[in-house]
């Protein structure tokens, strides 16, 4: 049944040309530049492939697709990275981040939620703005929000289920894939909350809120999805952070405590362990199911 058929030569040739033209990096004037001197002018090249319309020349017609391609993808990228957008403003985001990023990492998935999956890597390699580490952390938080929204649900550990409670003492525990953990020099979640109250245009003519920094230690935050599918964040202690990190890849309770001992934090953690586990279980953050095994696709 599923025998694949070879595409006709004309299809490959015309579509390859089309794809090269529309994905050519957009300039600030939104015009399609000459693609390459070896191809001659855009006008000449377009007229070899595209017929004129009653009102438009071939190069003007292909330019519509070029603009649509870039405007659509840049809009989607802005929507996926709303904090990074507000730090830069639309023009700077589009032309200093969006266009070069998408030129380097064109989309390779039908899923739009994956459009920005290489942006953090790209920022690490190419970002030239001030405070690069803050910008990258902002992008990480934006990305985590996008991923958390549609991550799979594992059956949560139930405190009402005695058998599960017993298993939790011996079997590996896993953190829900929708939960993301952060260790940061600055309290970027508080910052984000204030920045997100205004649109990006507002921040082009107003000073950004002050960034809270703790000189003594890092800030630890968990971003997670509630049982009502709302995204929440809260500050956690260093001990909680380490425990939850250990559950990301699956760990028995006993091993997790040994892990804390390695960090000389067991004395600090032990008096609170029962309460933390109760809270995490109520919030549905833990599971006995390995996310790599469970397929919960719709």
């Amino acid at each position, binding site marked *: 049944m599923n025998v694949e058929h070879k595409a006709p030569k004309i*299809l490959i040739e015309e579509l390859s040309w089309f794809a090269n033209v529309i994905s050519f990096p957009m300039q600030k004037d939104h015009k399609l530049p000459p693609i390459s001197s070896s191809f001659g002018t855009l006008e000449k090249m377009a007229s070899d492939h595209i017929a004129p319309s009653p009102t438009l020349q071939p190069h003007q017609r292909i330019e519509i697709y070029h603009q649509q391609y870039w405007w659509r993808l840049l809009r989607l990228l802005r929507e996926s990275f709303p904090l990074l957008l507000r730090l830069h403003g639309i023009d700077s985001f589009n032309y200093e981040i969006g266009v070069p990023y998408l030129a380097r990492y064109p989309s390779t998935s*039908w899923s739009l939620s994956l459009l920005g999956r290489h942006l953090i890597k790209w920022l690490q390699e190419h970002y030239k703005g001030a405070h690069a580490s803050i910008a990258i952390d902002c992008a990480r938080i934006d990305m985590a929000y996008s991923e958390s929204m549609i991550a799979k649900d594992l059956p949560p550990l139930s405190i009402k289920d005695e058998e599960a409670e017993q298993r939790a003492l011996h079997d590996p525990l896993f953190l829900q894939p929708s939960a993301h953990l952060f260790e940061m020099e600055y309290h970027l979640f508080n910052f984000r909350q204030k920045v997100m109250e205004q649109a990006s245009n507002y921040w082009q003519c107003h000073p950004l809120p002050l960034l809270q920094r703790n000189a003594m230690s890092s800030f630890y935050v968990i971003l997670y999805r509630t049982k009502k599918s709302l995204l929440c964040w809260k500050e956690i202690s260093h001990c909680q952070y380490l425990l939850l990190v250990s559950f990301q890849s699956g760990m028995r309770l006993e091993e997790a405590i040994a892990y804390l001992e390695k960090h000389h934090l067991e004395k600090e953690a032990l008096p609170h362990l029962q309460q933390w586990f109760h809270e995490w279980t109520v919030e549905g953050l833990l599971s006995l199911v390995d996310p790599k095994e469970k397929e919960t696709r719709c």
Partner: protein
Amino acid sequence: MNHCLLTPNGSIPNLGIGIGLRIPHYEEILRDKPAIDWFEIISENFMVDGGKPIEILQAILEHYPVVQHGVSLAIGSPDPLDFDYLKRLKELTKVTKTPWVSDHLSWGRLEGAHYHDLLPLPYTKEVIDYVAKRARIVQDYLEIPFALENLSSYVSFKKDEMKEWEFYSAIVEKADILMMLDVNNIYVSSINHGFDPKEYYNNIPLERVVQIHLAGHSNYGAYLLDTHDNYVIDEVWKIYADVYPRTHGVSTLLEWDDNFISLQETWEEALKAKKFQARLLS
């Protein structure tokens, strides 16, 4: 009007008038459960692992029929069909129980890159054979009726061997699949390419139409752009009035995807279709 379209897979119901399910309206729909006949979803928005989209879809399915409409199949792409994508699409059809699935007669994928747009194909006999075979494979794999939608387009290839309606008709007939006819797209393309819309819809197998799309567009002077952000213009309603009776009554859907108006206003705009459907009843 309870006309049923007969297909090799059985009969397909006329669901009445529907609107596209879009985020700005979720809360109101789930709270008030308005008397809307059915909703169309963009399949890809719900082909996710979990979270809010799945929760919303389950809640909608408790009260309304849902039909799946996709944007990423890339039926005309030279790349092999993406069976990981098709597997997830099929899994979603089991959840929604959609009576048919549609996507576009377009390409948006090449050498692994996705362009996230509905890009036009060269209208040649070779391309007809290629696309028709793939469309047949898709319908067989999904095991439910499959429909292809005509595009709004802004270019035509110099190597085109025929008109768009000849190309579209040949593919659906050769593949033995259905048509999702977008009457706004016929109008937009008629202006952009300079043809008479009547010539388009008088020369396609209207008996294969399973669903009609209505939408608004934007006028940029030298061309029209299919933006789905405005009211349906009179010329498009005229096409609908001509086409609808000749389909013997099929499901009709209003697409509104940007510059959103209220749910009530969207539904009222969609309901204008009833005026034209009355002609069939009379």
